[in-house]
């Protein structure tokens, strides 16, 4: 799959992170796709919603558009057409799948993530893309409205608050995940000190694979020291 | 027009086009279709496959599906009908016909633009010359037909000698044309299998695989199983296929080197015992046409002889009556040699009991011979339908078992085939026991009784074909009189009790076996026309028709007349028939 992408993606360099103020890195399309793939896998295997990769998504969408336009210019019986179309299909699948997984998570724990979003300081990156945030809010209010109309407003007044019911739902961060190490990281605390046992730490080395509880390593996923597999 | 170079004139033309494939309900067509689908998928040619049961269906399917389609491929249908006349397509629509039915309609042969025939060159020799059937001098033609308009003109012309001469010449030509056409169309027969042709196209484009060879083999075997081609023609085709088989199945180094789930085809002399690998040897012998008829297994004496034969080979009856696969290996492995060795004593010629054929094996268990697949596929194709089912449901079920991965479905289909053959054999037994095979003078006839359990199962064209043949051979064996060898058989089976219809087939006498030519197509047509019978000549096999059961009497009288007259004219039944019909208006 990758070799295919490389081939055609290398034709054009695209600017990734154009808008970001920090450093304007220029990445090839293939590299952007590699990043999308990583984000996709992490999202797929992490129990919680990860930071939105808005730039990657936008960049890939632009790329898809360019490719589609190029395809229209090709002759009908060109051998390359079906290879490119196939490649397009594959990219679109990864992208759709990535966004679908995120949407699913948002729908399942809307209140929980909205809560996090509300408490977010300006320094922290948002979990949502702007569109996702809009969707999440709309989704949340639609469910609120539905429950209120059908049940809450018919209940005695002291019971008419929803908060503890829905926001109680949250992702299980204690579940176990498979991961691959991207860069050496020493003494990661994976079990906090308890009365019975001492603190347990692990040294991760590049290219190792582990199966481990998610909670202690979640910060390493977002800093891409690890990739979930 | 005959296609000389299938790649250039057919395959390259349809690249990047949408193609409509119309397929009839026979195993050969299914195999051809499967090969084609493989090719089209390789080259990403978009297509639509539509199964068609008969001429009416062909017309409807064309109307329904032809929107925007410029290329239409027909598998085992269409050749014998003037397709342009029937379908009235737009001028830019092109038909590619790959059909083993003969004779090919002359309009199809000589339409150079819209009809392309995918057939073998050498099979097209006896086609009438163009000048014998078509005349290009349009003036003449319009003259003769539009008498009213140009009456004045023609009156004057009529007196001129030149004109009279021309008229005479024309009449002669017309007579000659009718005669040529009649001779050309009087017999229906079959050419090379569609699957074989498709395979050869694939091979010529270097796109053949072992699986495609197997499909070609099944197509050819189908033609043999349903008495469409003679044994010689079959052997000829098998030899062609054999070279492809050895090319694909030859492996360097130790034999067990190849993966177990790959397809292995081997060429072998195969016992002509129906489905014996999936049945018991005993059952299979009793239900195979040749052995059943030679032993006359329906009589006590026949059974005894069969037991004697088995004993002579040293095969205990118990072993023979249990499933073949459960037979003791030491016996099972020798069955073929034993049978070949001992059977001559019982009046069999070697070619009665074995025929060169192919086996396919994949995985550990699934050894199938080509005729097994044909019978299984056919049983599915013609399985009795439930009310809720569509006639076309069975088509794709049958297509699915051609895919070798569907072993479970194959197993079920084999069981259905056994059931079908069981019904067939017991119907033959009924015919003989009840003496229901009668002589009408020039031919034999028999009818399956209405309301029997078997009737439902047998009222399908391919199955009927096998029943007719089984009946004729059994009757002939029973009678022992030489005369039966020269008599054709007409056989009917009730089709729909409510609508009072039956399915009728005519098959040629046994002595004409080498030619596999059937004159009943024309004879049926004639008989139906003269008696005004309510018949439906819907099948592409024109010697099978549907008729209203009430009209059976008069239809048969006409048929007897027709054949009797021809008998009296000449001893050679086939030739004389042509003379008779030629003379009749």
């Amino acid at each position, binding site marked *: 799959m990758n070799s295919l992408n490389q081939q055609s993606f290398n034709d054009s360099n695209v600017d990734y992170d154009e808008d970001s103020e920090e450093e304007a890195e220029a990445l090839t399309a293939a590299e952007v796709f590699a990043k999308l793939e990583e984000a996709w896998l992490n999202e797929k295997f992490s129990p919680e919603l990860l930071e939105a990769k808005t730039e990657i998504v936008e960049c890939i969408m632009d790329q898809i558009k360019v490719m589609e336009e190029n395809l229209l210019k090709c002759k009908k019986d060109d051998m390359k057409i079906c290879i490119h179309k196939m490649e397009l299909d594959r990219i679109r699948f990864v992208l759709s799948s990535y966004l679908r997984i995120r949407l699913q998570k948002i729908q399942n724990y809307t209140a929980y993530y909205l809560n996090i979003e509300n408490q977010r300081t300006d320094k922290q990156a948002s979990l949502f893309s702007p569109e996702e945030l809009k969707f999440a809010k709309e989704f949340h209010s639609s469910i609120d409205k539905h429950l209120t109309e059908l049940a809450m407003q018919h209940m*005695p007044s002291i019971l008419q608050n929803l908060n503890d019911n829905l926001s109680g739902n949250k992702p299980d961060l204690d579940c176990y995940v498979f991961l691959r190490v991207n860069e050496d990281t020493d003494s990661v605390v994976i079990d906090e000190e308890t009365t019975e046992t001492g603190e347990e730490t692990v040294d991760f080395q590049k290219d190792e694979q582990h199966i481990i509880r998610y909670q202690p390593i979640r910060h390493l996923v977002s800093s891409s020291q690890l990739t979930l597999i | 027009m005959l296609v000389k170079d299938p790649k250039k004139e057919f395959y390259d033309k349809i690249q990047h086009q949408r193609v409509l494939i119309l397929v009839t309900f026979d195993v050969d067509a299914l195999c051809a279709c499967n090969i084609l689908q493989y090719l089209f998928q390789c080259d990403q040619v978009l297509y639509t496959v539509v199964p068609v049961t008969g001429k009416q269906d062909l017309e409807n399917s064309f109307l329904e599906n032809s929107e925007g389609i410029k290329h239409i491929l027909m598998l085992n249908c269409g050749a014998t009908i003037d397709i342009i006349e029937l379908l009235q397509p737009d001028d830019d629509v092109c038909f590619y016909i790959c059909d083993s039915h003969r004779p090919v309609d002359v309009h199809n042969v000589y339409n150079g633009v819209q009809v392309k025939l995918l057939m073998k060159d050498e099979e097209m020799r006896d086609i009438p010359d163009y000048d014998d059937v078509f005349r290009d001098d349009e003036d003449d033609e319009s003259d003769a037909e539009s008498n009213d308009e140009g009456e004045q003109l023609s009156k004057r012309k009529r007196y001129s000698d030149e004109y009279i001469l021309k008229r005479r010449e024309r009449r002669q030509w017309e007579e000659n044309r009718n005669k040529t056409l009649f001779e050309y169309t009087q017999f229906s027969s079959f050419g090379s299998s569609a699957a074989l042709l498709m395979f050869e196209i694939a091979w010529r484009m270097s796109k053949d695989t072992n699986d495609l060879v197997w499909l070609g083999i099944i197509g050819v075997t189908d033609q043999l199983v349903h008495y469409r081609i003679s044994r010689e023609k079959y052997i000829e085709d098998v030899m062609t296929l054999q070279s492809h088989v050895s090319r694909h199945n030859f492996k360097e180094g130790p034999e067990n080197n190849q993966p177990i789930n790959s397809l292995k085809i081997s060429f072998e002399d195969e016992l002509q015992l129906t489905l014996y690998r999936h049945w018991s040897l005993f059952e299979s012998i009793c239900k195979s046409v040749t052995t059943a008829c030679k032993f006359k297994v329906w009589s006590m004496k026949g059974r005894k002889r069969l037991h004697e034969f088995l004993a002579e080979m040293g095969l205990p009856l118990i072993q023979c009556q249990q499933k073949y696969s459960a037979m003791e290996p030491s016996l099972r492995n020798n069955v073929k040699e034993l049978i070949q060795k001992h059977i001559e004593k019982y009046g069999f010629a070697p070619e009665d009991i074995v025929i060169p054929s192919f086996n396919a094996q994949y995985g550990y268990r699934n050894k199938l011979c080509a005729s097994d697949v044909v019978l299984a596929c056919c049983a599915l194709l013609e399985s009795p339908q439930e009310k809720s089912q569509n006639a076309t449901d069975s088509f794709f079920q049958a297509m699915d078992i051609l895919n070798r991965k569907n072993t479970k479905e194959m197993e079920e289909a084999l069981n259905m085939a056994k059931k079908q053959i069981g019904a067939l054999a017991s119907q033959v037994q009924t015919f003989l026991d009840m003496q229901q095979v009668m002589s009408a003078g020039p031919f034999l006839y028999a009818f399956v009784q209405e309301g029997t359990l078997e009737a439902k199962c047998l009222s399908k064209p391919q199955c009927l074909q096998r029943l007719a043949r089984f009946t004729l051979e059994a009757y002939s064996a029973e009678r022992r009189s030489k005369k039966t060898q020269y008599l054709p058989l007409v056989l009917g089976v009730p089709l729909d009790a409510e609508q009072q219809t039956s399915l009728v087939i005519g098959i040629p006498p046994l002595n004409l076996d080498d030619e596999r030519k059937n004159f009943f197509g024309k004879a049926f047509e004639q008989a139906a026309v003269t008696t005004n019978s309510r018949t439906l000549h819907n099948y592409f096999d024109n010697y099978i028709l549907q008729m209203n059961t009430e009209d059976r009497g008069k239809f048969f009288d006409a048929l007897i007349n027709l054949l009797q007259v021809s008998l009296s004219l000449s001893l050679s039944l086939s030739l004389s028939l042509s003379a008779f019909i030629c003379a009749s208006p």
Partner: protein
Amino acid sequence: MLASKAFELIKELSRGNSGSLSPYNEDCIRQVLDEMKSLYEQNQKDVSDTVAGETGLFSGVQVRHAALERNKRCLLTYLYKRLQIIQEMRWEFGSVLPMDIRYNMCEQEISWFNRYNKMLAVYMRSIGDSGLDLTQDMQPPKSLYIEVRCLKDHGEFETQDGNIIVLKRNNQHFLLRSECEHLIRQGVLEHVTN
């Protein structure tokens, strides 16, 4: 028994199986709400009696309060779970639900479904400039074209290149995968693999 009606709602949920939605149980819900109302009134009365000096009523109030909470929880679970099922159906059946399923939904549920449909469409349109249909490409693509068999008469279908194909039961077609994925998921076509 206290809150037994509410429990019935929960049992009803667990009985339901994939591809169906039990009829919206308005009756039962009303009874639960009624029970809650009378529990609440009784509690109010007991509380004012306690204030008025009567003792020992506290435990009864506790029992009723627990029952009220229980009822509320079950009721909300019932409603919320149903929404989840309906939401899932949007992805499985597409934007139009079969009649018999709609028939089992209450008015508010139908309007929620429509609202969900809309917000999903808005979201999908807002991805990138041109939008992205997330209900497509549900499985990793293996080939550009696939062979499909019609399972029922569906009528005319226009392909991307503008051709019109008649989808009629038991015809087989070779088409672009992306074109027919929806129809396969809706059970109109069957993907034939070799």
